[in-house]
C-alpha cells in the first residue's frame, strides 16, 4: 500500500506540473458553470421580455377605433407596423406578428358583416411566432366581447353560447419549468469531468509506454496492482477535482443570473452541490479506470486518444437515450453509468428527493466497473511494457 501511495504522489505531482493542460482543464471546468448560467439567463430574459411587452404592431388600425379601444383597455399599446413587414418577417429582422386591418372594418362591424383581420407571422421566425399566440388570444377576446354585447342587446344570456368552460391548470411547478432550461447543465458537468481525467489517464498508461518508462517501472520490486492502484488514484483525483470545481462554480455563478425568474427557479445551494458530487465522484473514478483500460493496449498517446474517442462518444450519446425515448424515466436508466448520473442530477435540479437506493445503485455499478478495469490494467501491464 505504501508503494501505491508513492506512485500516486508521483503521478499527482506529474499531472500538476503539466501546467498548460491543467490550465485548459481548469478553465473549461471552472468557467463552464458561470458561462452556461449567463447564456441561459440571457436566453430566458429575452423570452420573458417579449412575453411581457404587451404590444400590437398593426397596419390600418386607424380604420378600427372600436378594436383600438378594446386593445387599449386591455393595457396593450398599438404600434404602427413598417410597410415592408412581410419581407422583414421572412428575413427575421422583425420579431413581432403584424395585425392587418382591412379598409371599412368599422362599418362592416356595425353592419354585422364579419370583417376579416389578418395576423401575419412566419413559422420560421421564432420570436414573431412566440407572441403571435398572445395577439391571437387578444383578438379573440375582442370578438367575444362584441358577441356578448350583441346577445345582451337582444336579451339573450351570453352563457347560452358557452356550453363548457375550460380552466387551465399547469401542473409543472416553477422548478420543473426552470429545469427545462437547466437540463443541459448535468451534461456539461459530466463532460468536464470526462475531459479532465482524459489526459491524465492517457499519460499514465499509453504515455508511459511511449516514453519507455513502463519497463523500468516494472523492474522495481513493487507489485503490479500497487502501481496500477497508485496511477488510478491519481487520475481519479484529477477527475474528482474537476468535478468539485465545476460543481462549486455554479454557486457564485448564480449571482450572474440576469433573469429574476430563472434566479428564483434555479436553486443550486450547498445541498444540491453535495448531491451532484455524491453522484459525480464515483463516476469520475469509474471513467478514469475505463479510459486507462482502453489506453493500456495502445502503444502511443495518439493511438490511445483515438481509441478513447469511443468512451467519450458513448458518454456523450448515452444521455440522448432520454431524448429518443419518450416513455419517461425507466428503472434500468439507473443501471447505466452516465445516464444514471444525468437522470439523478436532473432530479436534483427539479427539486425532487433522492433516496439512498438511488445513490447506492449507480455507486455500486461504478465500483464494479472500476474494479474490473483496474484488474484488467494490472494484467495487461507487463505485456504492455514489452510490446
Amino acid at each position, binding site marked *: 500500500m505504501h*508503494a501505491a501511495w*508513492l*506512485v500516486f504522489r*508521483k503521478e499527482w*505531482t*506529474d499531472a500538476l*506540473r*503539466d501546467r498548460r493542460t491543467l490550465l485548459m482543464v481548469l478553465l473549461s471546468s471552472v468557467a463552464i458553470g458561470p458561462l452556461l448560467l449567463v447564456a441561459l439567463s440571457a436566453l430566458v430574459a429575452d423570452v420573458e421580455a417579449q412575453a411581457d411587452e404587451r404590444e400590437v404592431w398593426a397596419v390600418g388600425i386607424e380604420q378600427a377605433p372600436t378594436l383600438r379601444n378594446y386593445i387599449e383597455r386591455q393595457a396593450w399599446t398599438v404600434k404602427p407596423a413598417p410597410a415592408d413587414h412581410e419581407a422583414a418577417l421572412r428575413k427575421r429582422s422583425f420579431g413581432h406578428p403584424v395585425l392587418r386591418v382591412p379598409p371599412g372594418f368599422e362599418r362592416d362591424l356595425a353592419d354585422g358583416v364579419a370583417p376579416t383581420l389578418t395576423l401575419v407571422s412566419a413559422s420560421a421566425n421564432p420570436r414573431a411566432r412566440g407572441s403571435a399566440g398572445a395577439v391571437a388570444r387578444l383578438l379573440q377576446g375582442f370578438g367575444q366581447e362584441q358577441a356578448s354585447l350583441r346577445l345582451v342587446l337582444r336579451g339573450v344570456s351570453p352563457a347560452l353560447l358557452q356550453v363548457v368552460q375550460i380552466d387551465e391548470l399547469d401542473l409543472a411547478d416553477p422548478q420543473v419549468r426552470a429545469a427545462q432550461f437547466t437540463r443541459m447543465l448535468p451534461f456539461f458537468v459530466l463532460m468536464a469531468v470526462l475531459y479532465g481525467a482524459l489526459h491524465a489517464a492517457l499519460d499514465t498508461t499509453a504515455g*508511459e509506454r511511449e*516514453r*519507455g*518508462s*513502463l*519497463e*523500468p*517501472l*516494472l*523492474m*522495481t*520490486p*513493487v*507489485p503490479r496492482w500497487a502501481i496500477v492502484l497508485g496511477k488510478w488514484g491519481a487520475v481519479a483525483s484529477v477527475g474528482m477535482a474537476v468535478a468539485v470545481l465545476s460543481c462549486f462554480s455554479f454557486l457564485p455563478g448564480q449571482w450572474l443570473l440576469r433573469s429574476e425568474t430563472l434566479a428564483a427557479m434555479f436553486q443550486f445551494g450547498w445541498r444540491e452541490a453535495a448531491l451532484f458530487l455524491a453522484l459525480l465522484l464515483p463516476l469520475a473514478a469509474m471513467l478514469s479506470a475505463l479510459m486507462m483500460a482502453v489506453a493500456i493496449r495502445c502503444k502511443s498517446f495518439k493511438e490511445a486518444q483515438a481509441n478513447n474517442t469511443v468512451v467519450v462518444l458513448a458518454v456523450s450519446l448515452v444521455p440522448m437515450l432520454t431524448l429518443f425515448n419518450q416513455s419517461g424515466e425507466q428503472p434500468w436508466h439507473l443501471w447505466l453509468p452516465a445516464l444514471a448520473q444525468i437522470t439523478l442530477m436532473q432530479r436534483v435540479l427539479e427539486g425532487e428527493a433522492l433516496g439512498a437506493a438511488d445513490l447506492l445503485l449507480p455507486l455500486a455499478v461504478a465500483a464494479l466497473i472500476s474494479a474490473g478495469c483496474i484488474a484488467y490494467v494490472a494484467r495487461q501491464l*507487463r505485456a504492455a*511494457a*514489452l510490446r
Partner: protein
Amino acid sequence: MIEVSALHKAFTQGRGRARRVVTAVDGVSWCAADACITGLLGPNGAGKTTTLRLVAGLLTPDTGQIRVDGIDVVREPQRAQARLGVLSDARGLYPRLTARENIVYYGRLQGLAADAAARRADALAAMLGMAALLDRRTEGFSQGERMKTALARALVHDPSHIILDEPTNGLDVLATRSLRETLRRLRDEQGKCIVFSSHIMQEVERLCDQVVVVAGGRTVAEGTVAELLARTGQTDFEASFVQLAFAGPVAGQAR
C-alpha cells in the same frame, strides 16, 4: 553472481492462420561472476534483450533456470529484483520531473527512505559527473544526460548486480568513455557483478573480463577475449566473433 542455465523462451505472434511461434532464446547458458564485467555479444536478433529481460524477471522463461546469488528469479522475482539494477533498452524518464526526482522516485519504490534516497541521488550524481544536472527537468536532456540519469536510477538501491542492455546506443565518444570508466570503477571499487549486452566489438574488447557469444538464441562460445582469439586462431576480435557467431549454427548442423 548470476547463473543462467538452459533458458528457453518462445513467443507467439499473430492469431488464427497467421499465428506462428518464434523462438527467441533456445538454450542459452552462462555465468557472470562477481567483481567481473561479462559481455553478452551477439548479432541483432540473437536473443540478447530477451535473455536480459528474463534475468530481470520481466518475462517468465518456458524452461530453464535463472539464479541471482542463488535466488530463483522465477519463484521469487521481487527478491531477485531488489538485487538487480537494470538499465534496459527502454530508458524513458519522466520529462516533467527533475533528474533528482526521477532518481529518488525509483529509490523510494525500491524501499529506501526519503532521506536515504536523496543521499544516494547525490552520491550517484557525484560518481557519474552529473551533479549540475540534478535539479533540472529531464525534458530536453541530451542522450548522454538521459543515459546518466537512467543509470543513476537503476543503481539507486545500490544493487550488487548490474545489467545493461546496449548501454552505449546513441552515445558519443565522450559519453561512451565516461560510461566505461564508471563501469570499471563499479567493478574495482565495489565488486559488482556487471553484465552488459552489445554488438560492438571494440567495446567488448576493451571492457569485458569475460565474453559470452550468443547467436540464434544459443550460447556459442564463452571465455576471455584472449581465449576466444586463441580458440578461433584469429588475431582480430571481429573476425573471431564473425567466425563464432555465424559459423556456429552451421557447425551445429554438421554435428
